[in-house]
Protein backbone atom coordinates (compact mmCIF):
# COMPACT_ATOMS: atom_id res chain seq x y z
CA UNK A 1 0.00 0.00 0.00
CA UNK A 2 1.11 3.55 -0.56
CA UNK A 3 0.11 7.00 0.67
CA UNK A 4 -0.35 8.29 -2.86
CA UNK A 5 -3.41 10.52 -2.85
CA UNK A 6 -4.50 9.30 0.60
CA UNK A 7 -3.93 12.65 2.33
CA UNK A 8 -4.08 16.32 1.44
CA UNK A 9 -2.37 19.40 2.83
CA UNK A 10 -5.35 21.63 3.50
CA UNK A 11 -3.73 24.42 5.47
CA UNK A 12 -0.34 26.11 5.49
CA UNK A 13 0.78 29.16 7.40
CA UNK A 14 4.11 30.96 7.78
CA UNK A 15 4.61 33.37 10.64
CA UNK A 16 4.87 36.84 9.09
CA UNK A 17 7.63 38.13 11.38
CA UNK A 18 11.36 37.49 11.32
CA UNK A 19 11.98 38.97 14.76
CA UNK A 20 9.45 38.36 17.53
CA UNK A 21 10.77 40.06 20.66
CA UNK A 22 7.84 39.80 23.08
CA UNK A 23 6.42 36.32 22.71
CA UNK A 24 7.04 32.94 24.25
CA UNK A 25 7.95 30.01 22.02
CA UNK A 26 4.70 28.20 22.91
CA UNK A 27 2.75 31.30 21.96
CA UNK A 28 4.30 31.35 18.49
CA UNK A 29 3.47 27.65 18.06
CA UNK A 30 -0.13 28.57 18.90
CA UNK A 31 -0.17 31.49 16.46
CA UNK A 32 1.03 29.38 13.54
CA UNK A 33 -1.30 26.52 14.49
CA UNK A 34 -4.29 28.84 14.40
CA UNK A 35 -3.04 30.37 11.16
CA UNK A 36 -2.78 27.03 9.38
CA UNK A 37 -6.14 25.82 10.68
CA UNK A 38 -7.82 29.05 9.60
CA UNK A 39 -6.22 28.64 6.18
CA UNK A 40 -7.74 25.16 5.99
CA UNK A 41 -11.15 26.27 7.27
CA UNK A 42 -10.77 24.11 10.38
CA UNK A 43 -10.29 24.74 14.11
CA UNK A 44 -8.28 23.25 16.96
CA UNK A 45 -11.36 21.21 17.88
CA UNK A 46 -11.05 19.32 14.60
CA UNK A 47 -7.46 18.21 15.23
CA UNK A 48 -7.03 14.54 16.15
CA UNK A 49 -3.28 14.20 15.46
CA UNK A 50 -0.37 16.42 16.45
CA UNK A 51 3.20 16.42 15.16
CA UNK A 52 6.14 18.45 16.42
CA UNK A 53 9.92 18.21 16.70
CA UNK A 54 12.67 19.32 19.03
CA UNK A 55 11.75 23.01 18.80
CA UNK A 56 8.47 22.39 20.63
CA UNK A 57 8.92 23.46 24.25
CA UNK A 58 8.32 20.88 26.94
CA UNK A 59 7.66 17.16 26.96
CA UNK A 60 7.57 15.84 23.39
CA UNK A 61 4.18 16.60 21.84
CA UNK A 62 2.41 16.49 25.21
CA UNK A 63 3.21 19.94 26.58
CA UNK A 64 2.13 21.75 23.42
CA UNK A 65 -0.97 19.55 23.11
CA UNK A 66 -1.85 20.55 26.65
CA UNK A 67 -1.12 24.25 26.00
CA UNK A 68 -3.24 24.24 22.84
CA UNK A 69 -6.07 22.25 24.41
CA UNK A 70 -5.81 19.41 21.90
CA UNK A 71 -8.10 17.18 23.93
CA UNK A 72 -9.13 14.87 21.09
CA UNK A 73 -5.76 13.58 19.95
CA UNK A 74 -5.52 9.95 18.99
CA UNK A 75 -2.16 10.15 17.26
CA UNK A 76 1.07 11.97 18.12
CA UNK A 77 4.56 11.96 16.62
CA UNK A 78 7.61 13.91 17.77
CA UNK A 79 10.09 12.60 15.21
CA UNK A 80 13.19 14.74 15.57
CA UNK A 81 15.50 14.88 12.57
CA UNK A 82 16.42 18.55 12.75
CA UNK A 83 15.39 20.68 9.80
CA UNK A 84 13.94 17.75 7.87
CA UNK A 85 11.54 16.83 10.70
CA UNK A 86 8.52 18.65 9.25
CA UNK A 87 8.99 17.13 5.81
CA UNK A 88 9.02 13.72 7.48
CA UNK A 89 5.99 14.68 9.58
CA UNK A 90 3.91 15.24 6.44
CA UNK A 91 4.77 11.73 5.28
CA UNK A 92 4.05 10.27 8.70
CA UNK A 93 0.74 12.14 8.93
CA UNK A 94 -0.24 10.88 5.47
CA UNK A 95 0.59 7.30 6.49
CA UNK A 96 -1.40 7.61 9.70
CA UNK A 97 -4.36 9.07 7.81
CA UNK A 98 -4.10 6.38 5.12
CA UNK A 99 -4.41 3.68 7.75
CA UNK A 100 -7.33 5.35 9.48
CA UNK A 101 -5.46 6.34 12.63
CA UNK A 102 -6.52 9.98 12.35
CA UNK A 103 -8.20 12.47 9.99
CA UNK A 104 -6.86 15.95 10.78
CA UNK A 105 -3.14 16.28 11.58
CA UNK A 106 -1.55 19.48 12.80
CA UNK A 107 2.22 20.06 12.43
CA UNK A 108 3.89 23.05 14.09
CA UNK A 109 7.33 24.66 14.21
CA UNK A 110 8.31 27.80 16.10
CA UNK A 111 11.29 29.37 17.77
CA UNK A 112 13.06 32.58 18.65
CA UNK A 113 16.81 32.25 18.09
CA UNK A 114 17.15 35.96 17.24
CA UNK A 115 15.22 37.41 20.13
CA UNK A 116 16.08 34.84 22.75
CA UNK A 117 19.47 33.53 21.72
CA UNK A 118 20.48 30.56 23.74
CA UNK A 119 23.79 28.81 23.33
CA UNK A 120 23.34 26.27 20.56
CA UNK A 121 22.74 23.04 22.43
CA UNK A 122 26.12 21.55 21.78
CA UNK A 123 25.85 17.92 20.89
CA UNK A 124 25.13 16.26 24.15
CA UNK A 125 28.15 14.96 25.98
CA UNK A 126 26.26 11.67 26.12
CA UNK A 127 26.13 11.26 22.33
CA UNK A 128 28.32 8.26 21.53
CA UNK A 129 30.45 10.29 19.10
CA UNK A 130 30.85 13.31 21.40
CA UNK A 131 34.37 12.64 22.64
CA UNK A 132 35.68 12.07 19.14
CA UNK A 133 34.24 15.22 17.56
CA UNK A 134 33.43 18.03 19.98
CA UNK A 135 36.99 18.62 21.27
CA UNK A 136 38.12 19.57 17.76
CA UNK A 137 35.78 22.54 17.56
CA UNK A 138 33.33 21.60 14.80
CA UNK A 139 30.72 24.29 14.13
CA UNK A 140 27.72 24.09 11.87
CA UNK A 141 29.33 26.13 9.11
CA UNK A 142 32.69 24.38 9.28
CA UNK A 143 31.10 20.95 8.98
CA UNK A 144 29.32 21.96 5.78
CA UNK A 145 32.57 23.53 4.62
CA UNK A 146 34.21 20.11 4.88
CA UNK A 147 31.51 18.71 2.61
CA UNK A 148 31.94 21.58 0.14
CA UNK A 149 35.72 21.15 0.02
CA UNK A 150 35.51 17.43 -0.68
CA UNK A 151 32.85 17.97 -3.38
CA UNK A 152 35.15 20.54 -4.98
CA UNK A 153 38.04 18.11 -4.81
CA UNK A 154 36.19 15.21 -6.40
CA UNK A 155 34.11 17.05 -8.98
CA UNK A 156 35.79 20.40 -9.63
CA UNK A 157 32.88 22.35 -8.17
CA UNK A 158 33.79 26.02 -7.69
CA UNK A 159 32.87 28.73 -5.21
CA UNK A 160 31.37 30.74 -8.08
CA UNK A 161 29.05 27.82 -8.87
CA UNK A 162 27.94 27.60 -5.24
CA UNK A 163 27.39 31.36 -5.30
CA UNK A 164 24.96 30.98 -8.20
CA UNK A 165 22.59 29.26 -5.76
CA UNK A 166 22.57 32.32 -3.50
CA UNK A 167 22.15 34.57 -6.53
CA UNK A 168 19.02 32.67 -7.62
CA UNK A 169 17.57 32.73 -4.10
CA UNK A 170 18.15 36.48 -3.91
CA UNK A 171 16.48 37.03 -7.27
CA UNK A 172 13.40 35.33 -5.81
CA UNK A 173 13.59 37.08 -2.44
CA UNK A 174 13.28 40.52 -4.03
CA UNK A 175 9.63 39.65 -4.68
CA UNK A 176 8.96 38.64 -1.06
CA UNK A 177 8.28 41.73 1.05
CA UNK A 178 8.90 39.74 4.23
CA UNK A 179 12.29 38.33 3.23
CA UNK A 180 15.22 39.30 5.44
CA UNK A 181 17.58 39.76 2.48
CA UNK A 182 15.63 41.27 -0.41
CA UNK A 183 18.45 42.80 -2.40
CA UNK A 184 19.59 40.72 -5.36
CA UNK A 185 23.27 39.81 -5.08
CA UNK A 186 25.85 38.87 -7.70
CA UNK A 187 28.31 36.00 -7.76
CA UNK A 188 31.10 38.47 -7.03
CA UNK A 189 29.26 39.83 -4.01
CA UNK A 190 28.97 36.32 -2.61
CA UNK A 191 32.66 35.66 -3.22
CA UNK A 192 33.63 39.01 -1.69
CA UNK A 193 31.61 38.44 1.49
CA UNK A 194 33.65 37.51 4.57
CA UNK A 195 35.02 33.98 4.71
CA UNK A 196 33.39 32.12 7.60
CA UNK A 197 34.91 28.67 7.15
CA UNK A 198 36.51 28.23 3.78
CA UNK A 199 35.25 27.60 1.17
CA UNK A 200 31.98 28.94 2.62
CA UNK A 201 31.49 32.71 2.75
CA UNK A 202 28.94 34.59 4.79
CA UNK A 203 26.59 34.70 1.79
CA UNK A 204 26.84 30.93 1.32
CA UNK A 205 25.03 30.66 4.65
CA UNK A 206 21.35 30.91 5.55
CA UNK A 207 19.92 33.70 7.67
CA UNK A 208 19.00 33.32 11.33
CA UNK A 209 15.45 34.25 12.17
CA UNK A 210 12.65 33.96 14.66
CA UNK A 211 9.41 32.61 13.34
CA UNK A 212 7.62 29.43 12.58
CA UNK A 213 5.02 27.73 10.49
CA UNK A 214 2.34 25.11 10.56
CA UNK A 215 0.61 22.64 8.28
CA UNK A 216 -2.71 20.82 8.39
CA UNK A 217 -2.82 17.42 6.69
CA UNK A 218 -6.27 15.87 6.27
CA UNK A 219 -8.02 12.81 4.90
CA UNK A 220 -9.46 13.12 1.37
CA UNK A 221 -13.04 13.10 2.66
CA UNK A 222 -12.21 16.01 4.97
CA UNK A 223 -10.52 17.85 2.12
CA UNK A 224 -13.59 17.40 -0.06
CA UNK A 225 -15.70 19.40 2.40
CA UNK A 226 -13.28 22.32 2.71
CA UNK A 227 -13.66 25.54 0.75
CA UNK A 228 -9.93 25.90 0.16
CA UNK A 229 -7.89 24.36 -2.64
CA UNK A 230 -5.79 21.58 -1.13
CA UNK A 231 -2.55 19.88 -2.16
CA UNK A 232 -2.24 16.15 -2.61
CA UNK A 233 0.50 14.15 -0.91
CA UNK A 234 1.80 11.85 -3.65
CA UNK A 235 4.95 10.35 -2.22
CA UNK A 236 7.37 10.43 0.68
CA UNK A 237 10.79 9.01 1.43
CA UNK A 238 13.31 9.24 4.24
CA UNK A 239 16.80 8.17 4.98
CA UNK A 240 19.53 8.91 7.45
CA UNK A 241 23.04 9.27 6.06
CA UNK A 242 25.56 7.88 8.51
CA UNK A 243 29.31 7.87 9.03
CA UNK A 244 29.70 4.20 8.07
CA UNK A 245 31.92 3.19 10.95
CA UNK A 246 34.66 5.59 9.89
CA UNK A 247 34.21 5.58 6.10
CA UNK A 248 32.23 8.82 5.88
CA UNK A 249 31.72 10.14 2.35
CA UNK A 250 31.12 13.90 2.33
CA UNK A 251 29.97 14.16 -1.28
CA UNK A 252 26.35 13.03 -1.04
CA UNK A 253 23.32 13.15 1.24
CA UNK A 254 20.54 10.82 2.33
CA UNK A 255 18.49 12.18 -0.58
CA UNK A 256 20.11 9.48 -2.73
CA UNK A 257 17.75 7.12 -0.90
CA UNK A 258 14.85 9.32 0.21
CA UNK A 259 14.44 10.80 -3.28
CA UNK A 260 13.90 7.55 -5.20
CA UNK A 261 11.54 6.29 -2.49
CA UNK A 262 9.40 9.41 -2.84
CA UNK A 263 9.48 9.39 -6.65
CA UNK A 264 8.54 5.72 -6.78
CA UNK A 265 5.62 6.14 -4.43
CA UNK A 266 4.38 9.17 -6.36
CA UNK A 267 4.88 7.48 -9.72
CA UNK A 268 6.76 10.45 -11.15
CA UNK A 269 10.34 11.22 -12.17
CA UNK A 270 12.59 14.25 -11.69
CA UNK A 271 11.61 15.40 -15.18
CA UNK A 272 7.99 15.74 -14.00
CA UNK A 273 8.84 18.21 -11.21
CA UNK A 274 7.64 21.74 -11.95
CA UNK A 275 8.91 23.35 -8.74
CA UNK A 276 11.33 22.25 -5.99
CA UNK A 277 11.71 23.44 -2.42
CA UNK A 278 15.21 22.34 -1.47
CA UNK A 279 16.53 22.88 2.03
CA UNK A 280 19.25 25.47 1.77
CA UNK A 281 21.03 25.71 5.09
CA UNK A 282 24.09 26.44 2.93
CA UNK A 283 24.66 26.63 -0.80
CA UNK A 284 26.42 23.26 -0.74
CA UNK A 285 23.31 21.68 0.82
CA UNK A 286 21.31 22.58 -2.29
CA UNK A 287 24.02 21.51 -4.69
CA UNK A 288 24.37 18.04 -3.24
CA UNK A 289 20.60 17.55 -2.97
CA UNK A 290 20.02 18.49 -6.62
CA UNK A 291 22.49 15.82 -7.68
CA UNK A 292 21.25 13.23 -5.20
CA UNK A 293 17.62 13.70 -6.25
CA UNK A 294 18.54 13.03 -9.85
CA UNK A 295 17.99 16.48 -11.34
CA UNK A 296 21.46 16.21 -12.84
CA UNK A 297 24.30 13.73 -12.94
CA UNK A 298 26.33 13.33 -9.73
CA UNK A 299 29.12 15.88 -9.74
CA UNK A 300 27.50 18.08 -12.38
CA UNK A 301 25.49 20.18 -9.93
CA UNK A 302 27.87 23.11 -10.26
CA UNK A 303 27.34 23.46 -13.99
CA UNK A 304 23.61 22.89 -13.54
CA UNK A 305 23.09 25.74 -11.07
CA UNK A 306 25.51 28.11 -12.80
CA UNK A 307 23.36 27.85 -15.90
CA UNK A 308 20.39 29.59 -14.28
CA UNK A 309 18.45 26.36 -13.80
CA UNK A 310 17.12 27.41 -10.39
CA UNK A 311 15.58 30.71 -11.50
CA UNK A 312 11.81 31.02 -11.39
CA UNK A 313 9.60 30.99 -13.25
CA UNK A 314 11.30 29.61 -16.35
CA UNK A 315 14.48 27.82 -15.21
CA UNK A 316 14.76 24.04 -15.60
CA UNK A 317 14.20 23.62 -11.86
CA UNK A 318 12.69 26.73 -10.23
CA UNK A 319 13.55 26.50 -6.53
CA UNK A 320 12.81 28.24 -3.23
CA UNK A 321 10.69 31.00 -4.71
CA UNK A 322 10.18 32.66 -1.30
CA UNK A 323 13.93 33.28 -1.10
CA UNK A 324 14.45 30.19 1.05
CA UNK A 325 16.64 30.00 4.10
CA UNK A 326 19.39 31.76 2.20
CA UNK A 327 17.38 35.01 1.93
CA UNK A 328 13.88 34.81 3.37
CA UNK A 329 13.88 33.19 6.80
CA UNK A 330 15.06 30.14 8.67
CA UNK A 331 12.92 29.75 11.76
CA UNK A 332 14.84 28.04 14.56
CA UNK A 333 17.52 26.95 12.08
CA UNK A 334 15.05 24.36 10.79
CA UNK A 335 14.14 24.90 7.17
CA UNK A 336 11.84 22.00 6.36
CA UNK A 337 8.58 23.67 7.36
CA UNK A 338 8.96 26.76 5.20
CA UNK A 339 9.98 24.50 2.31
CA UNK A 340 6.65 22.66 2.46
CA UNK A 341 4.73 25.93 2.82
CA UNK A 342 6.23 27.48 -0.32
CA UNK A 343 5.54 24.29 -2.30
CA UNK A 344 1.90 24.50 -1.20
CA UNK A 345 1.79 28.12 -2.39
CA UNK A 346 3.19 27.12 -5.77
CA UNK A 347 0.70 24.28 -6.23
CA UNK A 348 -2.18 26.57 -5.26
CA UNK A 349 -0.92 29.23 -7.65
CA UNK A 350 -0.41 31.60 -4.72
CA UNK A 351 3.32 32.26 -4.89
CA UNK A 352 4.49 35.80 -5.53
CA UNK A 353 3.38 36.59 -9.10
CA UNK A 354 6.81 37.16 -10.69
CA UNK A 355 8.04 33.76 -9.42
CA UNK A 356 4.86 31.71 -9.72
CA UNK A 357 5.64 28.72 -11.92
CA UNK A 358 2.99 28.55 -14.66
CA UNK A 359 0.73 25.51 -14.54
CA UNK A 360 2.56 24.13 -11.51
CA UNK A 361 1.30 20.59 -11.06
CA UNK A 362 4.06 18.60 -9.33
CA UNK A 363 6.34 19.91 -6.58
CA UNK A 364 9.17 18.30 -4.70
CA UNK A 365 10.22 19.18 -1.15
CA UNK A 366 13.57 18.05 0.17
CA UNK A 367 14.68 18.47 3.76
CA UNK A 368 17.96 17.64 5.40
CA UNK A 369 18.62 17.68 9.13
CA UNK A 370 21.74 17.19 11.17
CA UNK A 371 25.03 17.91 9.43
CA UNK A 372 26.40 17.09 6.00
CA UNK A 373 29.76 16.98 7.78
CA UNK A 374 28.82 14.06 10.02
CA UNK A 375 25.42 12.36 10.26
CA UNK A 376 22.19 13.67 8.83
CA UNK A 377 18.65 12.71 7.91
CA UNK A 378 16.96 13.44 4.60
CA UNK A 379 13.23 13.53 3.91
CA UNK A 380 11.64 14.04 0.51
CA UNK A 381 8.03 14.72 -0.42
CA UNK A 382 6.31 14.77 -3.77
CA UNK A 383 3.21 16.95 -3.72
CA UNK A 384 0.62 17.45 -6.42
CA UNK A 385 -1.98 20.02 -7.32
CA UNK A 386 -5.46 19.06 -6.15
CA UNK A 387 -6.31 17.70 -9.60
CA UNK A 388 -2.97 15.89 -10.04
Amino acid at each position, binding site marked *: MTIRGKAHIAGAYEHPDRKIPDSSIAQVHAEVALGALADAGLSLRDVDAYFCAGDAPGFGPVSMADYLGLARLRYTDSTETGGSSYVAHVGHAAAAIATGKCRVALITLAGLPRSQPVPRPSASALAPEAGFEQPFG*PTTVSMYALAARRHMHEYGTTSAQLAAIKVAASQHAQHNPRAMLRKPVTVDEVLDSP*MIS*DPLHRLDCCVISDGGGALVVVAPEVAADLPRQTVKVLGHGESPKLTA*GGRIDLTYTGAVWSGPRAFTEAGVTPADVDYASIYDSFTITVLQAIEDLGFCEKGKGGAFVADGALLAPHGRLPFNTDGGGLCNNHPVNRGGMTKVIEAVRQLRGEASAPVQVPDCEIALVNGNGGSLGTRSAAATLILGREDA
Partner: protein
Amino acid sequence: MTTPGAALPAPAPAVNPETTQFWAATAAGRLLVKRCQDCEHLIWYPRVICPECSSLRTEWLQVSGRGSIYSYTVNHRGEGAYQGSPPFVLAYVELDEGPRVMTNIVETDDADLAVGLPVEVVFHDTGAGPALPRFRPRRS
Protein backbone atom coordinates in the same frame (compact mmCIF):
# COMPACT_ATOMS: atom_id res chain seq x y z
CA MET B 1 49.30 32.02 8.35
CA THR B 2 50.66 29.60 10.90
CA THR B 3 48.39 27.60 13.10
CA PRO B 4 50.59 26.66 16.00
CA GLY B 5 49.26 23.71 17.92
CA ALA B 6 50.13 25.29 21.21
CA ALA B 7 47.76 28.19 20.56
CA LEU B 8 44.77 25.95 19.98
CA PRO B 9 42.45 25.17 22.84
CA ALA B 10 42.57 21.52 23.85
CA PRO B 11 39.21 20.89 25.52
CA ALA B 12 38.82 17.64 27.41
CA PRO B 13 36.75 14.98 25.63
CA ALA B 14 33.71 13.26 27.08
CA VAL B 15 34.96 9.88 28.30
CA ASN B 16 32.79 6.90 29.23
CA PRO B 17 33.46 3.27 30.13
CA GLU B 18 33.35 2.33 26.44
CA THR B 19 36.16 4.76 25.57
CA THR B 20 38.34 4.87 28.69
CA GLN B 21 41.07 2.73 27.12
CA PHE B 22 41.20 4.87 24.01
CA TRP B 23 41.82 8.03 25.98
CA ALA B 24 44.28 6.38 28.35
CA ALA B 25 46.31 5.38 25.29
CA THR B 26 46.35 8.96 23.98
CA ALA B 27 48.03 10.04 27.19
CA ALA B 28 50.77 7.55 26.35
CA GLY B 29 51.07 8.79 22.76
CA ARG B 30 49.28 5.84 21.13
CA LEU B 31 46.35 6.03 18.70
CA LEU B 32 43.87 3.18 18.91
CA VAL B 33 40.91 2.14 16.80
CA LYS B 34 38.51 -0.72 17.30
CA ARG B 35 38.89 -3.83 15.16
CA CYS B 36 36.09 -6.30 14.58
CA GLN B 37 37.28 -9.84 15.26
CA ASP B 38 34.57 -11.27 13.02
CA CYS B 39 34.65 -9.11 9.88
CA GLU B 40 37.98 -7.31 10.49
CA HIS B 41 36.44 -3.88 9.91
CA LEU B 42 38.46 -1.11 11.56
CA ILE B 43 35.82 0.89 13.39
CA TRP B 44 35.77 4.66 13.94
CA TYR B 45 34.66 6.23 16.23
CA PRO B 46 35.49 3.49 18.72
CA ARG B 47 32.55 1.51 20.10
CA VAL B 48 31.76 -1.95 21.41
CA ILE B 49 29.56 -2.99 18.50
CA CYS B 50 30.73 -3.44 14.92
CA PRO B 51 28.45 -1.30 12.72
CA GLU B 52 29.42 -3.40 9.70
CA CYS B 53 28.41 -6.87 10.94
CA SER B 54 26.77 -6.31 14.37
CA SER B 55 29.41 -8.36 16.15
CA LEU B 56 30.20 -7.50 19.75
CA ARG B 57 33.62 -9.14 19.42
CA THR B 58 35.68 -6.00 18.95
CA GLU B 59 39.18 -5.30 20.18
CA TRP B 60 41.55 -2.35 20.44
CA LEU B 61 44.20 -2.02 17.76
CA GLN B 62 47.06 0.47 17.69
CA VAL B 63 47.38 2.22 14.31
CA SER B 64 50.34 3.98 12.76
CA GLY B 65 49.11 7.52 13.25
CA ARG B 66 49.84 8.22 9.60
CA GLY B 67 47.29 9.26 7.03
CA SER B 68 46.28 11.95 4.57
CA ILE B 69 43.79 14.82 4.55
CA TYR B 70 40.34 13.75 3.28
CA SER B 71 38.84 17.23 3.66
CA TYR B 72 39.66 20.40 5.60
CA THR B 73 38.47 23.91 6.32
CA VAL B 74 40.01 26.94 7.96
CA ASN B 75 37.34 28.04 10.40
CA HIS B 76 37.37 31.77 11.14
CA ARG B 77 34.48 31.63 13.62
CA GLY B 78 35.23 29.34 16.51
CA GLU B 79 32.53 28.55 19.05
CA GLY B 80 32.53 27.18 22.56
CA ALA B 81 36.09 26.56 23.73
CA TYR B 82 37.29 27.96 20.39
CA GLN B 83 35.37 31.24 20.63
CA GLY B 84 37.80 34.05 19.79
CA SER B 85 40.51 31.63 18.67
CA PRO B 86 42.55 32.58 15.63
CA PRO B 87 41.46 30.73 12.50
CA PHE B 88 42.10 27.01 12.93
CA VAL B 89 41.93 23.95 10.72
CA LEU B 90 39.16 21.38 11.13
CA ALA B 91 39.66 18.29 9.02
CA TYR B 92 38.95 14.68 8.35
CA VAL B 93 42.11 12.63 8.10
CA GLU B 94 41.97 9.25 6.39
CA LEU B 95 44.27 6.98 8.36
CA ASP B 96 46.53 4.72 6.32
CA GLU B 97 44.58 1.84 7.87
CA GLY B 98 41.26 3.19 6.45
CA PRO B 99 39.13 5.06 8.97
CA ARG B 100 38.39 8.78 8.43
CA VAL B 101 38.67 10.69 11.69
CA MET B 102 37.68 14.22 12.65
CA THR B 103 40.63 16.23 13.89
CA ASN B 104 42.61 19.46 13.61
CA ILE B 105 45.60 20.03 11.36
CA VAL B 106 48.39 21.82 13.22
CA GLU B 107 51.94 23.02 12.60
CA THR B 108 51.01 24.04 9.07
CA ASP B 109 50.82 27.04 6.83
CA ASP B 110 47.31 27.39 5.43
CA ALA B 111 48.79 27.73 1.94
CA ASP B 112 50.20 24.20 2.21
CA LEU B 113 46.87 22.60 3.04
CA ALA B 114 45.48 20.27 0.42
CA VAL B 115 43.26 17.25 0.17
CA GLY B 116 45.61 14.29 0.08
CA LEU B 117 48.39 15.96 2.07
CA PRO B 118 50.27 13.27 4.06
CA VAL B 119 49.99 13.86 7.81
CA GLU B 120 51.02 12.23 11.08
CA VAL B 121 49.48 12.28 14.53
CA VAL B 122 50.58 14.50 17.39
CA PHE B 123 48.97 14.46 20.81
CA HIS B 124 47.91 17.63 22.61
CA ASP B 125 47.47 17.32 26.34
CA THR B 126 44.06 18.46 27.57
CA GLY B 127 45.28 18.82 31.14
CA ALA B 128 42.58 16.39 32.23
CA GLY B 129 44.36 13.12 31.40
CA PRO B 130 43.36 12.50 27.77
CA ALA B 131 45.35 14.02 24.90
CA LEU B 132 43.73 15.06 21.62
CA PRO B 133 44.98 13.26 18.50
CA ARG B 134 45.71 16.04 16.02
CA PHE B 135 47.72 15.82 12.83
CA ARG B 136 50.59 17.74 11.25
CA PRO B 137 52.17 17.51 7.80
CA ARG B 138 54.33 14.40 7.65
CA ARG B 139 58.03 15.10 7.96
CA SER B 140 59.48 11.70 7.26
